[in-house]
């Protein structure tokens, strides 16, 4: 089928340079690495954080959030590569080919997600020696959820890039303006509960789709499937993915450089 072939073509093109320089994937992992190394040790004195988990290790609570942070930080910048190709002429070259426009977007987003999964696995492997307990099924489900969320954020980043072609600073400005509130309001670093946060902040965090994804990841990585949080997280991630992919495909179709 042409759409599948084209998606594979777009995906294979993007993956090529990553496979040739696998060290490159370490760069976009920097932020979660720093938090895991320099912030997480502070939590060990505080006992079970957030009151959300029954297990004693703060890693259990903190790591799933870090994976969401990874998904946000690694895929939110995906549009930058597209932006470069838009100004160099390489994107124009793709646009004059009969390559399916939806495939152009999906192929790129899939590559982002493959990198994201590789990074997430690397983090989990590095944490094996700690007292972080890995529930295999829960972790698999958690990574699947992360994939859905990553596709959405990546696609939104491409959409933003497509709309910033005339003014590249727009991309970086909007990206930072959205990235940090999404991150801080998701309760990745500290729990945001009705008891611990001012009402306005709590309300904002409940509007943030990343909050639900974080809570679902925490449940899944703890091996708990039958929780409302898991359902909400799945709904939030799917909504972001659908929105991103639809907007991105529309952007690609209308792209004229």
């Amino acid at each position, binding site marked *: 089928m042409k759409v599948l072939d084209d998606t594979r073509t777009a995906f294979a093109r993007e993956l090529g340079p990553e496979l040739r320089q696998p060290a490159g994937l370490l760069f976009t992992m920097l932020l979660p690495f720093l938090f895991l190394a320099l912030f997480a040790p502070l939590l060990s004195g505080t006992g079970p954080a957030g009151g959300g988990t029954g297990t004693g290790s703060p890693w259990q609570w903190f790591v799933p959030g870090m994976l969401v942070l990874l998904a946000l930080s690694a895929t939110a910048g995906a549009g930058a590569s597209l932006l470069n190709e838009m100004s160099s002429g390489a994107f*124009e070259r793709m646009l004059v080919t*009969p390559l399916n426009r939806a495939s152009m977007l999906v192929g790129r987003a899939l590559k982002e997600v493959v990198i994201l999964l590789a990074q997430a696995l690397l983090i989990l492997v590095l944490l094996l020696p700690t007292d972080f307990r890995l529930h295999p099924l829960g972790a698999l489900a958690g990574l699947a959820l992360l994939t859905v969320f990553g596709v959405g954020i990546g696609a939104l980043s491409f959409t933003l890039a497509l709309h910033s072609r005339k003014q590249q600073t727009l991309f970086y400005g909007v990206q930072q303006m959205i990235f940090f509130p999404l991150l801080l309001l998701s309760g990745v670093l500290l729990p945001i509960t009705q008891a611990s946060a001012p009402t306005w902040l709590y309300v904002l965090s409940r509007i943030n789709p990343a909050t639900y994804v974080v809570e679902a990841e925490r449940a899944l990585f703890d091996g708990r499937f039958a929780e409302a949080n898991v359902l909400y997280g799945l709904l939030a991630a799917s909504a972001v993915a659908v929105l991103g992919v639809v907007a991105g495909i529309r952007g690609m179709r209308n792209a004229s450089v």
Partner: protein
Amino acid sequence: MIHTRGLTRSFRTKGETVEAVRGLNLDIEAGSVVAFLGPNGAGKTTSLRMLTTLLPPTSGTAVVAGHDVRTDPAGVRHRIGYLGQGNSAGSNFRVSDELVTQGRAYGLSRAESRSRAERLVTALELDGLAKRTVGTLSGGQRRRLDIAMALVHEPALLFLDEPTTGLDPHSRANIWDHVLRLHKELGTTVVFTTHYLEEADLWARRVMVVDHGRVIADDSPEKLKADLAGDRITLGTADRADAERAVELARGLPTVHEVTADGTEVRIRTPHGDTQLPVLLRNLEVAGVRALTARLVRPTLDDVFLSLTGRTLRESADATAPTTTQDGA
């Protein structure tokens, strides 16, 4: 191969509507080599972008390689090759990978894409560079790679937007060698824009002079130069009297555009200077007028542009340069 009617494109910038292309009517038959010649901002690139489906027209129709750019852009894309002003290959990709990706994008099998990529690498003298990262190539090498990328699917129609701008003379000649060989071997139709007058003059069989979004002249370079500019003959005589008699005699020649005398110098514009000059010299001899010097200057396409617009291409480029960035025309 290309048929357009009333093709128009306007842009809105700072509340003003700029008409980049106004009512383009083109009929280009298969197998021709056509140049769009004009200053920056004349609408050359905008026209090409509409013909290659990169830019939707504001109004009018364009049928390219048998398919309408508006209703069947994919049909057009399958049949055309395009070389833009930028770099076609991503800078952190491998040369061979980018070529294979192109082949795949046109629906060729992986094996076929690979073998075509290998052939193009050799044809465009990129041997030894196939495994290099695009960003490490020189300007001339990158441009040859751009050409190779435009040719992977052996298109029947090739659009080149300033294919040689910024390249050294050797690389320029090299690129034209390849394009013209392709034209000869496969009958590829070639449509290109250029700033280099001599490229339009040497390689195009038909030149469309574009100014302010309109085609203001359209013919073979030879005819354009003969009809619109003409050769210039300059004679030097011993004194004013001889100069005046020379003017009389020159006016008697067939198909002379303009004869002027300036002191002892006589200037003649004629479409056929090479055949007129010997005749004129013989007539002067018979009439007893001595010509001390005789000089024949063939016209360039710049002379054509000058006689059409009253400006040279270079002046126009300078005058319009600041406004051309936003539409890239």
